[in-house]
Each structure stands twice: as structure tokens, then as C-alpha cells.
């Protein structure tokens, strides 16, 4: 069956392509760029944190007199950088990379499909995301600067904020729409496009992780979209959804109708934002599971257990959200409910982590670059998860809520957690996408320097938080307890700048290897899952003949076989 049309032109092939692989690369490159940009924002902020009130050397003047007069950061600019750092990293960086990048590229290949269920919808999802991303960046150039009420945008502060907040809300509407369209695509693809013999329990864990993630995105994002609409109404139409009666701002009584509830925003926001954190971790766990299976040369321990734990985690993630709101005047019954569900949800996380750890037992471990990142992920995710415990219990949360302890906690999960998984995935699937390997020496340098410095950035934050230093402080030395731990803050800043430098190994490697990497054929890692059955890179349509699946996804070191791996699509020997 030949192609019945001419090869599409430049725009159809590279810009508005409906091929999931092109779209995946678009998401990946855009997402990694935003990730780097978001990281640059925090590197800038960390100067002010370490040396409050001092002009930023060399580059200080380029930010203009509105933001950094004489190179010294203004508090309003600091707050903008903070809000945008969080927003960009989560919504423009990590999720598009994990779901739009890895999910789009790898998932159809792993289920043996020629493409996603709705290729045109896929293309639209990317462009809506790109539009949302650009909208977010526009915020920096409007009067009053970008949004500066935290990525959490609590009203009334965000209601009263400058134009940048409106731009943020519009950007969020685009980003949420993109996610919703994407999640529909993923679910239908997994349900309908699996090739023959690929039953649900023969799916790679990566696919399960993406499937549950898609349900979280589908069902959790709309309340935030609703909240965004309500806040837009408050800001543009003068409504009082989030504005209580009797507000007096800077001595001026507000003339709104009143009767609104700031807590309404918090409930709607966290209803999304809690499942969102599982969106940040599940695909990462999927990537790590694939790489661990491949580099231990044995099936991971407890595949079914991990699948059930993931599904349970997905359900539970919808009923823990108010553990972000313990300090809002919550009574004992409600806080007991949410503390209990929070304790319960820690169990499937522990199960999955333990399963991956046990997978190292009686293995044959190859320390490839992807494996280094995947291995480091495990203890880093453990630290992040464990430090969630004092935060999830209301009594201990009193001392730790909205301190640097929280910042340390969630960064451990997302930074040396998810982002390391992202690096692992890039090194792992780069040969599939480009047909060439990334340089292993540069990869190892990237790993070791990143691992050391990322811990230097975030580990001190637990002590800073225990000491009582609040989040989002332009200058913590105002407080005696803050001044006492300022040296730890300086340490974190230097760690961050050196971590930034360490990424140069990765950036160079990423670009040079496109031309100079070692060429490989379709399965350089001796892996078993279906994406490695296709050529590197796969052509339009992925597989010359649709692969038939004969066994589970991780048949490594099967007794009685010559090779230590048995791909899913190879018929059994006679």
C-alpha cells in the first residue's frame, strides 16, 4: 500500500506536522528551553538571596531601571522571578517534557501503533502549548512586570496585582487546554491502538504511568481552569468571587460587592495542583522503571504491584489536596481527614520505590549514563518523599508550613527526582530519535557534577526551614533566625550557580552528538520493549509491519536463552 500523496512541504513536515515523533521533538526542545530559562530565573534570584541588596555583577544592568535599578533587584522583580520560576518549571518545562515530549514520542512506539489516535489533535495540542508559553513570557514586558503572587496566585493579592497576573491567567487557559486535548489522545491511544498480543499487563510500566497521568490531567485541570475564569472575572469585570467584604488596601476601602472567599481559590487551585505533583512524578517513575529494567538485565520486581499502586495513587491524589491548607483555620475533623488520606497516599509511593530498589537484587547492573541518573533518582526521590511526612501531619506542619523545608521537600522530588529522570530518558532514547549515541564521558561528567551540586543546593534548605525561615523572602536576614542561617543560603546559591555550569556538559553533548555521536541501529541498549524494534529513527508510520507481541515487556535473562534479552515482538524459538 503506497503513499497516495506527494511528500508534504516544509511547513507540513517540520512545523505543523501531525507525526507524533516530530511533535514529540517539538515538545522536547521547547520544554528543555523553557526549563533552562526557568533555571536562569532562579540563578538570578539566588544572588539576591545570598547577598541581599548588592548589585548583581556583570549582568545586573541589563534588566533595566524598572526591575533592577543600579543592578540591585527590587522586591517586586524578585517576586515576579519567583512566581514565574515556579510556573515555567512546572507548566512550561517539566510536564511538556514528560508528557508532550517523552509521552508523545515513545508511547505510540511502545504500543506498536503507527501514531497517536488523533494526530491532528496532537499537533494542535503542541501549538496551543507554545502559544501559552509565549503568552507567559509576554508577562515580563507588560507594565508592572510579570505575575508576582507566587505560582499559587492566592487572592486577594493576585486579584489586586498588576497586569502581569491577567497575562498569567490567559496563559494558563492555553496551557490547560493543551493538556486536556493531549490527555484525551493518550488515553484513547492506549485503549485502542495496542498491537496484537499486547494486553494491558504486557504494557511497559512507562505506558501505565502515562495512562494514569493522563487521567489526572483530564480530571484535575478543569477546576483550575474554572478558577482562572473566576479570577479573570474578578480582575476584569469587578466581581468578588475571591474578595471578602470590608477590604481596606493601603488605607483605601475596596468598592467591590464583597461576600467572596479567598479560600475558594485555594480549594480550586489545590484540587488541581495536588494531582499535578503526581503528574510530575509518575512519568518520571515510568522512565526510571524502563531504564532500571534494561540495565539490571532482569524484570523489575513486582510489576503488577507497581501497576496497582500507581492506579491507587491516581485515585488517592484527588482526596488529599487540603493538606496544603492546614493553616487556613481548618478544624480538627477536616484536618484529620486530609492528614489520614495523606498518610495513606504515602503507601503506594513507598511501594513503587521499594519495588524499584528490590529490582537491583540479584541483578546484573550496567552503569550506563541513563542508569546513573535512574539510580540517583531513587534515593533523591526517597528524601523528597520522606520529608513530606512532617508536612503532611498538621501538628508538625505548624512549624514547617511555608518555610524553606517545603521548598527543600518538593525540590528534592522534582529536581534531583523528576529532572534526573528526564536526563536519564534523554540519554536513553536519544539514539532512537537521532540514530546516534550521546557521548558517555560527557554524560558521566554531567551526572557527577549535577548530582553533587544539586544536593548542595537543596539539602541545606531543610535546616533553613527548621530554623523558621519563611518562603518567598526577598531578604531573610531581617529576622534573627534568618540571619543565623544566612551562610546556608549562600551555600545553596553557589551550589545553584555551579549546577548551572555543569549543564554545559549536557548542552554541548546534546548538540554535538547529532552530528558526531556514534551511529547505532535500532536496538543499541539490547532492550525488549517495542520502540527498539523500529529503526533509529523510525520512519513515518513507525513499523514496516505491525509488530505482534508474544510476551511481557521485561523478559531479560530468561533461563535457557542465548541472549540475555528476549524482545516482546520476537516469536518464540521453535
Amino acid at each position, binding site marked *: 500500500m503506497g503513499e*497516495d500523496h506527494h511528500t508534504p512541504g516544509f511547513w507540513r513536515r517540520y512545523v505543523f506536522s*501531525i*507525526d507524533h515523533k516530530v511533535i514529540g521533538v517539538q515538545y522536547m526542545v521547547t520544554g528543555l528551553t523553557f526549563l533552562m530559562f526557568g533555571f536562569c530565573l532562579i540563578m538570578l534570584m539566588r544572588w539576591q538571596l545570598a547577598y541581599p541588596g548588592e548589585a548583581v555583577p556583570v549582568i545586573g544592568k541589563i534588566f533595566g531601571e524598572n526591575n533592577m535599578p543600579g543592578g540591585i533587584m527590587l522586591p517586586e522583580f524578585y517576586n515576579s522571578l519567583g512566581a514565574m520560576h515556579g510556573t515555567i518549571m512546572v507548566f512550561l518545562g517539566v510536564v511538556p517534557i514528560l508528557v508532550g515530549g517523552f509521552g508523545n514520542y515513545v508511547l505510540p512506539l511502545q504500543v506498536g*501503533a*503507527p*501514531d497517536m*489516535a*488523533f*494526530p491532528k*489533535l496532537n499537533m494542535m495540542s503542541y501549538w496551543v502549548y507554545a502559544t501559552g508559553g509565549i503568552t507567559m513570557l509576554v508577562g515580563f514586558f507588560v507594565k508592572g512586570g510579570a505575575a508576582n503572587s507566587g505560582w499559587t496566585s492566592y487572592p486577594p493579592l493576585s486579584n489586586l496585582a498588576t497586569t502581569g497576573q491577567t497575562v498569567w491567567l490567559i496563559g494558563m487557559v492555553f496551557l490547560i487546554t493543551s493538556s*486536556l486535548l493531549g*490527555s*484525551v*489522545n493518550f*488515553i*484513547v491511544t492506549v*485503549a*485502542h*491502538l495496542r498491537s496484537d498480543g499486547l494486553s494491558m499487563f504486557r504494557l511497559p510500566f512507562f505506558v501505565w504511568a502515562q495512562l494514569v497521568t493522563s487521567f489526572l490531567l*483530564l*480530571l*484535575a*485541570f*478543569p*477546576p483550575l*481552569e*474554572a*478558577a482562572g*475564569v*473566576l479570577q479573570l*472575572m474578578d480582575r476584569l*469585570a*469587578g*466581581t*468578588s*468571587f475571591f474578595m*471578602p*467584604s470590608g477590604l481596606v488596601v493601603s488605607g483605601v476601602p475596596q468598592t*467591590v*460587592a*464583597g*461576600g*467572596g*472567599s479567598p479560600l*475558594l481559590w485555594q*480549594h*480550586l487551585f489545590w*484540587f488541581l495542583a495536588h494531582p499535578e505533583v503526581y503528574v510530575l512524578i509518575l512519568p518520571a517513575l515510568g522512565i526510571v522503571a524502563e531504564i532500571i529494567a534494561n540495565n539490571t538485565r532482569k524484570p523489575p520486581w513486582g510489576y503488577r504491584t507497581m501497576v496497582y499502586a500507581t492506579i491507587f495513587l491516581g485515585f488517592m491524589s484527588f482526596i488529599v489536596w487540603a493538606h496544603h491548607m492546614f493553616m487556613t483555620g481548618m478544624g480538627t475533623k477536616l484536618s484529620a481527614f486530609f492528614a489520614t488520606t495523606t498518610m495513606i497516599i504515602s503507601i503506594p509511593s513507598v511501594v513503587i520505590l521499594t519495588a524499584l530498589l528490590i529490582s537491583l537484587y540479584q541483578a546484573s547492573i550496567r552503569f550506563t549514563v541513563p542508569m546513573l541518573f535512574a539510580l540517583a533518582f531513587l534515593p533523591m526521590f526517597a528524601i523528597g518523599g520522606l520529608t513530606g511526612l512532617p508536612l503532611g501531619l498538621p501538628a508538625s506542619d505548624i512549624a514547617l508550613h511555608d518555610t524553606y523545608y517545603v521548598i527543600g521537600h518538593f525540590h528534592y522530588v522534582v529536581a534531583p527526582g523528576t529532572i534526573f529522570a528526564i536526563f536519564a530518558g534523554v540519554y536513553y532514547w536519544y539514539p532512537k530519535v537521532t540514530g546516534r549515541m550521546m557521548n558517555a564521558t560527557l554524560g558521566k561528567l554531567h551526572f557527577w557534577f549535577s548530582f553533587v551540586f544539586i544536593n548542595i543546593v537543596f539539602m541545606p534548605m531543610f535546616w533553613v526551614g527548621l530554623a523558621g525561615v519563611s518562603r518567598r523572602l526577598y531578604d531573610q536576614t531581617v529576622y534573627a533566625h534568618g540571619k543565623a542561617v544566612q551562610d546556608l543560603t549562600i551555600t545553596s546559591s553557589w551550589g545553584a550557580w555551579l549546577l548551572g555550569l555543569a549543564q554545559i556538559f549536557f548542552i554541548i553533548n546534546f548538540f554535538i552528538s547529532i552530528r558526531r555521536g556514534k551511529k547505532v541501529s535500532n536496538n543499541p541498549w539490547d532492550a525488549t520493549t517495542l520502540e527498539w524494534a523500529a529503526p533509529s529513527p523510525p520512519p*513515518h*508510520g513507525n513499523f514496516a509491519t505491525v509488530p505482534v507481541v508474544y510476551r511481557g515487556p521485561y523478559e531479560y535473562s530468561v533461563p535457557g536463552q542465548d541472549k540475555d534479552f528476549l524482545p516482546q515482538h520476537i516469536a518464540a524459538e521453535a
Partner: protein
Amino acid sequence: MSSETLPYTVKPHPVTAMYSGKFGTWLFLASEVMLFGALFSSYVLLRVGAPAEGPGHWLSHHETHLSWKIGGFNTLVLIISSVTMVMAWASLKMGSLQKARLYLIITAVLAVLFVIIKLSLEYIPHIKDGLVPSHSNFFALYYTMTGLHALHIIGGVVVIAYFIGPGAKLYHKDPEYYTNRIECTGLYWHFVDLVWIFLFPVLYLL
């Protein structure tokens, strides 16, 4: 990449018993339930939290100046449009594009009628009386919820217009595929109707 090489674009899948577009539509509608559900939940929270009297109190029926007769009529308009939507799909199943087109046109006209009634008999007179969104939380919610709903109606009309006009070409190329798309549009349309069935009593009667 043409959709002919993707399986289950027309044939139903053995497990889900749906073709892909239908499954996708149902999933999309689940997210819409969460969207409108969030707004209904906001209504509950704001109404329950409002003081009994004084500034910020919840408006009584008398104060809202909302006519249940107009709202009721509009409800009827939408229900009939849902019926005509089904008739359009049924006509296609029985092989008549002409009849289907007629029913689609009636559906679109009824939808536009709904919006016109809303604008001319409700929104505009209310705004003239100063009953604008910023007036009170009741009106803030009223305009936001009915406004979002109306946007969904307009979106639906655009899709239906496409299938009456340029989209109808697909019927001649692949009648079953075209029929399926009308079915999915119908699913979306019934959902939009259902949202109104909840909005009407909550805003006009309670």
C-alpha cells in the same frame, strides 16, 4: 499519515465498544463535567458562606429579576434542539444526507435562538438595570456560568455549521465516518443541554 491506517477510527473497538472518536468525546465530556462541576461547587460554597443580610448577602428571587418563564422557554428550545440533533444522526443512519442537513440546520437555528433570547431578553435588560457581574456574587456566578455555557453553545453551532457546509463533503467519501462525527457532535450537544438543565433550576428556581 492518513487516518485509514489508524485502526478503530470507524469500526468499534471490541473492548470499549466504541470507535476512537466516540471514546475521545466521552473523555472530553468527563473533563467538562469537572469544569462545570467546579463552578457549581463554587456556587454552593459562596451561597452557603454568604451572610443572611447586609453587604454580600445572597440575592432573593425578587432581587435577581430573573424570569423563570424566559428561562423555562429557553430550556424547551434546547431540549428540542437535542431532539433534532438525534434526528439528524438517525437520518444519516438511514442514508439521507438531505434530511440530516435539514435537522442540523434546525438545531443550529434553535441554538442561535437560545443565545439571542439570552442576550436580548436577559443580559441586556439586566445590564441596563445595573445588574452587572460586579453587582453581587449571585450575578457574578450567573453571568460566568451562563456565559461559559453560551460560549459552549456557540462553539457547538460553529461545528454544526461546518458539518452542514464544507464538512458534508466527507459524507460522500466515507458516509460511516461522517455519521460518526455527527454522533460525537450530538453527544457534545446533549451534554451542553444537560448543563443547562442543571443551570436553570439552580439559578432561576432555588
